[in-house]
Structures are given as structure tokens and as C-alpha cells.
């Protein structure tokens, strides 16, 4: 059927400045640029990935949204009309990538951080030690010691802990959804920065064997690449129940992306769809979840913390409590703005709840039940900047998880076309000629720079708060104030409105 859809973007070439080097033609992975005597554009193909504009030596390329005005209609927005056209032409579920772009409230931007003035001194982070170190894992209720004052040792047996030098870890993104070079960059950066990367559900490529002490290995419903060796060669094991971008639905790596290398890592034949069922079919209850948690603990001889990742949904607090009682050492909550390689748009844009509210609710609930010590809380789902990290930790998180931010650091332009496999930046693709565009070393440097910068920024804030360890901020909601929030929202977040003192 011929498409009635107009182009989304218009690419303009300044032919005066263009010196016909054809770099843009070579760089465009979406077939929007050709060379016929001069650079010619197929606007309909452009996704605004900016690859051509970035590499044009003459800055001769500009990309604009197609200024095609629609008859005004607040209700029937152009996007809704275009989606209807797409579906009328295809009969398909609309697929998309990245996180929820809709203008739902961003609560991070309605929270402000406290600072010291006069009566309590701030600390200069440049000249005094500032501790960002964080340990993930179950903490004991109390500590018992043996021996005497000269020779004292810990009697309490500690659950396994994973040390983070900075409370920011890389999010689960599978090899398959993203390229091997992206995985390598994440692994190298995690090792250098003393943090973690996460395999996602696609197994672990053998090239990453040297980084396993910095890798979270995931067990998802498809169980791709999951073996006892995989579980034991890890920093910790994560059971993936849900994902913020697509709560309650499974994963689907299309057969065309399953080439030789992916097939080997996922341990499935070349060309078959890698389907992850929506639920783990051995988990229909908290008791069943506990069974899998302990199957993993038995397999790893109780040496690895086990994390359970869920999407933030309405009943998240009760579910998290169940997860902790089931024996998880870490609860990972992914908010509704979390990214994805591919998800139905209806789910990405309309299902789940914001991470800020979910985090506050979970931390509250675990405290009320007296089990907060039994698990660390990791949160993700659009942590965009170090300020979000500080606010999340003040709300009660142990550490944050960054997916989209880490991809942007490596070059991603958030064009939302990850599911096409044509990522021009070598990230969400398996095509060798595109994967090559991402140099793992350079990617790792960029990721390390980002985390280094965030680390310094967090230290600045800690200094201004007059504390010298991130530990002192954890769950300290008194150091946050809300602006422009309803009383109910403030109550859920457990913070006061700005203007209210102690």
C-alpha cells in the first residue's frame, strides 16, 4: 500500500558549501542520502540521527522537523494522526525504541537539595575526603564481635557484598539489542571506574571474560546463554522480571539480528527469533520467585548477591517487599521512562509509574516492615544527570542505574530507531560496518569521563550539604524540598514543600 505519511524531517544541503566529498552518503545508514551528480536527499528516510551533519567537513547539512502544519487540534495531535495512518497502512503494533518521550511530570525537576549556611559548616570537596563508596548486598540486622579489645573480629556472617566506587552502574542492555563494541566499552568503563555493567538477557560474549568481576549477569525468562559458568563468573546475578519501558511484556530479538556471534552467545541457532516470554513460567508467586533466587544461590554457593529487577508499577511497594522476603539481596526498580531496544509504543508510553514515586514508596514500605537492611535498592528509568542521582539517594536508593545516559555518552542521538538495527552510531546494531563505527576504547573513555564528572558533581553537592560520605545522604529526605507539587505527591515522596524549615 502506498504510504500517505509525510516525511518527519527535512534535510537541507547547502550546495554552495558542499564540496562533494560524499561523507554524508557513506555515513547515512538509513538510506536517506544518495549521490546523483550532487548530494540528493530522500527526506522520508531521515530519522535525525545527526550522523551526516556531525561528519560533514563543511557544516553544509541542516536537519529540521518537517514544518508541515496540521490543522490545529489539541485532541488530534499530528503524532496521533500519523500513528493512525501507519496502522491503517499496515495493521501492525507500532514498535519503537528508547524511553517514554511523553510530557509526563518529571518529579526530579520538582525537588531541590538543601545546603549548609552559617550554623552548620559546608565541606570543601576539593581538599577533604569525600566518600562515594557503596556496598550492594543484604546487610545484617546487627553486628556481633568476638575476642577482646586487642584482638577483635567480626562474628556475624556477612552476606556477599559488591563494592562500587561510585553509586552509578550501567543498565542492563543485551548483546543483541546493542553491539559487541558497545558492550566492550561498558565493560571496560565499569572496570576502570569500579562500577558494574549488566549483560541484559542476551548472555555474555566470550570477549568479555576478563571483566566478569564487574559484570551483572541477567537471568530472564528466555534464559539465553544462562549456564552455571555464566552465573558463577559474575559480580552478581539479576533475575529480570520486568523492564520500565515495557512492564509485563516479554522481549523479542528478531531473527535477522541473530547472526553467528549472537547465536553463539545466546546459544540458539542463527536466524531464529529470540523470544523472551512475558513471565518466567516457573514464577507465578513470591514463593516461586524465592525458588529461583535460591536455585541461583545454590548454583553459586551463596557467593553472589542476587538481584531482582522489576518495572515500577502501581503495586510496586508490596511487590518489592515480597521480593526482599523471597531472599533477594538487591531490588532493582526500573521507572516508566526507562529505555528499550524495542517495545510496542502503547506499552512504552502508557504503562508503569515514575521512578521517583516508586522509589519513595518502596523505601517507605521496606522501612515500615523493618526489612530495609535486607536488600539494597537500585533505581533506573531515566536518570539523566548527577543531580538525579543525588536526589534518588536522598529518597532512599543505594545506587542508580543509567542506560540511555550511557548510550548518549557513547554517541547515541536518541533517535528512537534502535529496533531497526540501523543505528548510525554503532550502538544498537549488529551490522559489522556500523558496529565498527564505535571504537570500544573511545566509548570507554567517554563513559569514564561522564562518570568522573558526575562523581565530582556529587562530591560538590555532598560538600555543600556538609557531609563527607554518600552513606550519610542515603534516605535523608529531610535534605530535599518539593516545589510545585501537590500535598499528596509530597506525602508520597515523603518530603516537605520548599519554604518549610525543620
Amino acid at each position, binding site marked *: 500500500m502506498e504510504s500517505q505519511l509525510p516525511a518527519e524531517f527535512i534535510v537541507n544541503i547547502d550546495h554552495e558549501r558542499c564540496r562533494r566529498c560524499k561523507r554524508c552518503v557513506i555515513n547515512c545508514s538509513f538510506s536517506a542520502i544518495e549521490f546523483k551528480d550532487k548530494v540528493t536527499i530522500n527526506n522520508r528516510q531521515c530519522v535525525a540521527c545527526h550522523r551526516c551533519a556531525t561528519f560533514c567537513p563543511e557544516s553544509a547539512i541542516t536537519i529540521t522537523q518537517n514544518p508541515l502544519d496540521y490543522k490545529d487540534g489539541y485532541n488530534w495531535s499530528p503524532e496521533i494522526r500519523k500513528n493512525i495512518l*501507519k*496502522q491503517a*497502512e*499496515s*495493521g*501492525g*503494533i*507500532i*514498535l519503537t525504541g528508547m524511553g517514554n518521550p511523553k510530557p509526563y511530570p518529571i518529579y526530579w525537576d520538582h525537588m531541590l537539595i538543601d545546603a549548609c549556611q552559617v550554623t552548620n559548616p559546608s565541606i570543601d570537596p576539593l581538599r577533604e575526603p569525600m566518600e562515594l563508596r557503596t556496598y550492594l548486598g543484604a546487610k545484617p540486622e546487627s553486628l556481633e564481635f568476638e575476642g577482646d579489645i586487642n584482638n577483635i573480629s567480626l562474628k556475624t556472617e556477612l552476606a556477599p557484598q559488591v563494592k562500587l566506587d561510585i553509586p552509578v552502574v550501567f543498565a542492563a542492555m543485551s548483546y543483541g539489542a546493542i553491539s559487541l563494541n558497545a558492550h566492550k566499552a561498558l565493560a571496560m568503563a565499569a572496570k576502570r571506574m569500579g562500577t558494574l555493567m549488566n549483560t541484559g538477557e542476551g548472555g555474555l560474549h566470550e570477549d568479555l571474560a576478563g571483566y566478569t568481576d564487574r559484570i551483572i549477569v541477567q537471568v530472564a*525468562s*528466555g*534464559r539465553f546463554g*544462562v*549456564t*552455571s*559458568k555464566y*552465573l*558463577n563468573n559474575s559480580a552478581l546475578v539479576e533475575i529480570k522480571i520486568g523492564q520500565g519501558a515495557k512492564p509485563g511484556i516479554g522481549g*523479542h530479538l*528478531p*531473527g535477522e539480528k541473530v547472526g553467528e556471534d549472537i*547465536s*553463539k552467545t545466546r*546459544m*540458539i*541457532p542463527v*536466524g*531464529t*527469533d529470540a*523470544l523472551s*516470554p512475558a513471565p518466567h*513460567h*516457573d514464577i507465578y508467586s513470591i514463593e516461586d520467585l524465592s*525458588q*529461583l533466587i*535460591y*536455585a*541461583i544461590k*545454590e*548454583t*553459586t*554457593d551463596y557467593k553472589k548477591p542476587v538481584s531482582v529487577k522489576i518495572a515500577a508499577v502501581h503495586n510496586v511497594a508490596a511487590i518489592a517487599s515480597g521480593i526482599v522476603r523471597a531472599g533477594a539481596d538487591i531490588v532493582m526498580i526500573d521507572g516508566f521512562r526507562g529505555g528499550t531496544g524495542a517495545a*510496542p509504543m502503547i506499552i512504552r508510553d502508557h504503562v508503569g509509574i515514575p521512578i521517583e514515586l516508586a522509589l519513595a514508596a518502596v523505601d517507605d514500605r521496606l522501612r515500615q516492615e523493618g526489612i530495609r537492611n535486607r536488600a539494597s535498592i537500585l533505581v533506573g528509568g531515566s536518570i539523566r544527570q548527577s543531580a538525579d542521582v543525588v536526589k534518588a539517594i536522598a529518597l532512599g536508593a543505594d545506587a542508580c542505574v543509567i542506560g540511555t545516559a550511557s548510550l548518549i555518552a557513547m554517541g547515541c542521538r536518541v533517535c528512537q530507531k534502535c*529496533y*531497526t538495527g540501523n543505528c548510525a552510531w554503532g550502538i544498537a546494531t549488529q551490522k559489522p560496518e556500523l558496529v565498527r563505527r564505535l571504537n570500544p576504547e573511545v566509548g570507554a573513555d567517554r563513559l569514564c569521563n561522564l562518570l568522573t564528572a558526575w562523581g565530582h558533581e556529587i562530591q560538590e553537592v555532598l560538600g555543600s550539604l556538609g557531609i563527607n560520605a554518600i552513606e550519610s545522604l542515603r534516605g535523608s529526605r529531610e535534605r530535599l524540598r518539593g516545589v510545585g507539587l501537590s500535598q499528596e505527591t509530597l506525602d508520597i515522596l515523603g518530603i516537605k514543600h520548599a519554604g518549610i524549615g525543620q
Partner: protein
Amino acid sequence: MRIDAKGMHYRPMNKMIRDAVASGQKEFELDNIGGQRYIGAGLNENVKITINGTPGNDLGAFMNGPKIIVNANGQDGLANTMNAGEIIVHGNVGDIIGYGMRGGKLYIKGDVGYRVGIHMKEYKKQVPIIIAGGTAGDFFGEYMAGGIMILLGMNGKSPLVGDYVGTGMHGGVMYIRGKVDPYHLGKEVNCLELSEEDTKLISGYLKEYCEYFGFDFNEVMSGKFTKLVPLSLRPYGNMYVY
């Protein structure tokens, strides 16, 4: 090594087994087993474990090599994500056995429960096989992505297999001894007659199977088998629009 498991929690018992395996022990006999979970979980060595009694859930989970013989019934989750090895059960077993299993053999003498072989897969030479001598519950071979499943129905009970056989199936093959009514089948499945190669393939496994449980091989082979394969390796390829 012989362990009297009466009243023992699974944790110290499995630890004992793991430690003994690490120090070179090759054979285990576990007596008075009554529901202890995770026996053999994650073991990578070619040891033999004989279980006298009914083991608990997740027997042989993530297992990679051992041979386990159960002289009783099994419970749920046997061979969960198993990579290699053998589990032989002289009785019936429960639900979701062979979930995500990727290699090795699972031979059950009697009936199997719901969702057997769900998302079983194969990779090159690693082709898992499940054979059950009795009947099966609903969702037999759901999401099946590889491997071989054979259901024999030797006890003559009916129905031979529950509803939604092979729902979401996108790889592997099932052989069911007897007729499967179309309304039991998932919509991603195709029903075929056996070729000579199929017969050769299953006789190899069934000979071994019959020896374990004392079934008459010729009688088993005299039944008429139905072969089930996926209609597509990409059942949901056309559902999406970009």
C-alpha cells in the same frame, strides 16, 4: 558417598555434595530424600547421583554434566535451564520440567505435568531431549525453540496430551505416540507424518529409554507417531510496524 537425608535441610546436604564433588567424589547415593530442593543444581562434573525418595523442586537446575537417577516420583522444575547431563525418573513428575533446557537427557517413566519443555532450545551439537512414557498436561512444548520431545502415552490414559500443545513454538520437534486432536494444538504448530529419518532418530533414543524402564521397544515403536514442528521460525515477525 552415601547420605542419609532424613530430616535434613537441602542447604547443608547440597553443600556436602558440592564439597565432595570438589574433592573428587564420583558417586552419590541419597537415601530418605523427601522434598529437598536443588539437588545437583549447578554441578559441572560427570558424577552420578542416585536418589532414593522424592526430590524437591528444581532438581538438576543449571546442571552441566551429572547423571541423576530418581527411584521415585519427581516434583516441579526438573532440569531447569540444564546444559548437559542426564536425569532418569522412575515415576511421574510435576510442572515446568526442562524449562530453557539446552542439552542433555530427561527420561521420565510416567506422566509429566504442565508446560513441559517450555522454551527448550538447542545450539549446534547441544540438542536436549525429553522423553515421557505417560501423558502430559497443557502447554506441552510451549515457546519451544529447539530440542526433541517424545511423548509415549504407554499407560493408555486419556487425554494423551493437554491443550495448547506447542503454543509459540518456533524451533525443535515433538513426536507424540498417538493421535493429537487438532483442537489440542497451538496455532504455531504443524502436524506431519514421520519420515524414515525421524524413525531412525527416535529409535536411537527410545532403545536407550526402554532399557532404563523395561518397556518393550518393539511395542513402543509399533505405535503411530505424530510429528509436530513449528510453522515458522519467526511466528511473530509480521505483527509490528515501524
